[in-house]
């Protein structure tokens, strides 16, 4: 039989919409922006997300969008393997599941059996749950945890809404971690001192090899520079630091590039961490993700976490920390 050449369709040719979310104003807003998409009603987002034997990589090349209502929990205690930057109560929420980017080291590949992007449209319930939690005391909240929220700003403007929400609640600190270069939507609102924009930065050779579909280092630096100039608290995250060939030179050059593009003294802080992963996620990734050498490195396993052995960990983080400490006081450098 003859065979054609496969060309994946563009993203979001299909939008699955939970029946309960169909009339939500956010759903209508998203669908208005996607007039060409085919709308498929579903009962629950797990009907799409949890099907067995999904072709993860083919889905990543042509993701569908799933619009759903989050039910049950809206806040989660953060993992012990995520830096808390000295905050006592560290939580995260999941306004979306999955990401537009395709990073080879990302745990989402092992966490969810589907690469389709889920957006939870009932933001008001997340806000109410956060207000309720704030009654118990100050809280640090990571908003961009199982996704890259700023990269989705054109579909759902959640980053701006959460910045405005945080602005009136000084006991709340929010972190929006991103690789996006899309600073423009944030440029239209005033910075909030308790809304931290955290850019994940990687050396160009690392980004080119392991961070598919992401903006380049130069683009991310330009976005971070604009944010710093406008007065946003900006965190720089070098996480994960990867043990690539010639890593010493690559990261030396990288910090030089970062320090020449940004006034590092103006950065709120720097966060450094090496590759680490739940061992079951890593196992899942070997069956789903694009094969890269990262998936086959002889990591050490402690509990259910795989990561580099202690000497490698110390060499990598020590080197990057030393480089940054020439530009920023050591107490503003956090190493995980």
């Amino acid at each position: 039989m003859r065979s054609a050449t496969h060309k994946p369709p563009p993203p979001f040719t299909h939008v699955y919409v939970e029946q309960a979310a169909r009339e939500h104003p956010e759903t209508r807003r998203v669908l208005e922006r996607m007039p060409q998409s085919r709308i498929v009603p579903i009962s629950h987002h797990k009907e799409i997300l949890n099907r067995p034997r999904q072709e993860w990589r083919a889905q990543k090349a042509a993701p569908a969008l799933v619009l759903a209502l989050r039910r049950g929990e809206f806040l989660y205690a953060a993992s012990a393997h995520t830096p808390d930057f000295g905050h006592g109560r560290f939580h995260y929420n999941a306004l979306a599941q999955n990401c537009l980017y395709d990073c080879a080291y990302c745990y989402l590949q092992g966490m969810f059996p589907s690469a389709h992007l889920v957006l939870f449209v009932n933001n008001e319930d997340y806000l109410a749950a956060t207000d309720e939690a704030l009654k118990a005391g100050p809280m640090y909240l990571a908003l961009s945890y199982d996704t890259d929220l700023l990269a989705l700003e054109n579909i759902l403007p959640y980053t701006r809404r959460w910045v405005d929400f945080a602005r009136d609640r000084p006991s709340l600190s929010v972190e929006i971690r991103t690789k996006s270069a899309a600073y423009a939507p944030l440029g239209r609102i005033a910075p909030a001192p308790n809304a931290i924009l955290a850019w994940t930065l990687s050396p160009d050779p690392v980004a080119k090899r392991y961070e598919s579909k992401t903006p380049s280092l130069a683009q991310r630096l330009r976005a971070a520079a604009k944010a710093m100039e406008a007065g946003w608290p900006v965190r720089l995250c070098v996480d994960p630091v990867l043990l690539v060939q010639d890593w010493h030179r690559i990261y030396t050059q990288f910090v030089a590039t970062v320090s020449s593009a940004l006034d590092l003294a103006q950065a709120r802080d720097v966060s450094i961490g090496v590759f680490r992963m739940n061992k079951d996620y890593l196992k899942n990734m070997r069956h789903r993700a694009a094969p890269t050498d990262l998936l086959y490195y002889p990591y050490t396993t402690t509990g259910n976490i795989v990561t580099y052995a202690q000497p490698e960990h110390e060499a990598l983080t020590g080197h990057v920390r030393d480089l940054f400490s020439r530009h920023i006081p050591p107490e503003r450098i956090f190493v995980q």
Partner: protein
Amino acid sequence: MILLHTALTPEAKPLARHFGLQMSDRRRGPPLLIGDGVSLVVSGAGRARGAAAVAYAWGSLAEAGQPPRAVLNTGLSAAEGRAHYPDMLFRHSLPESTLYTFDTIVESREEARSVSFDAPAPALVDMEAGGVFTAMALFLPPSRVHSLKIVGDSLSDARSLTANAVQKLMEGATDAIANFLQELNAFCDAAPSTNPLKTNEEQLLHEVAETLRLTATQKARLRDAACRHRLARGKSPMSVLSAFALERPTHKHERNRVLHRLIHALSNT
């Protein structure tokens, strides 16, 4: 191999002709026709028959070393109906619709509504697809099981189609089905492997592991090193593995030393 499924013989005949399919020599079970890259099973009407037939065809083809990599349920459908969620990950030019599977013939919109839930916009009904999808979900991803329906009747005249009329409708649709199959086949061809090693590399790896009498953990370490060698250096691990293929360690400590050298060679060559 792509497996086609129809409920009725008149639906199957034009497809058999178009794809040059021949009846298999199996004497039991539903009719199974086989051709070059395409096979076809005819189930008879009904969800249970549909499920049983595709499962039977799957087993028969797998036993013959040709497990289907995708399944396409096709045939006639009436207008109006109930839904499914195949993953549509390749481009095609056909309209998409929801499809409702019923256990009995549905003759009116009212009857459809009484059995199904809130039938949305134009939809289709049949009696098999639900069974085919359920059965094939045991074997295939949701991106590889699809249903193509030729709308041949409205609910009001469901019983009036003759075998000749069904055959004619199918004949008119075979080109569209063939085009869809081409796209589906291309999608299957393009599916990237998550295994970094090629078959011959896996084989040599297995031989070396057996010769060295590696434990399960050591085999896994060796395989990881071979995978890393290919992915980090872009080179086949064959030459490194071959250099160790003749090693015959006589005791455990020697085996461990050989393994250490082998992994070192894979990591540094």
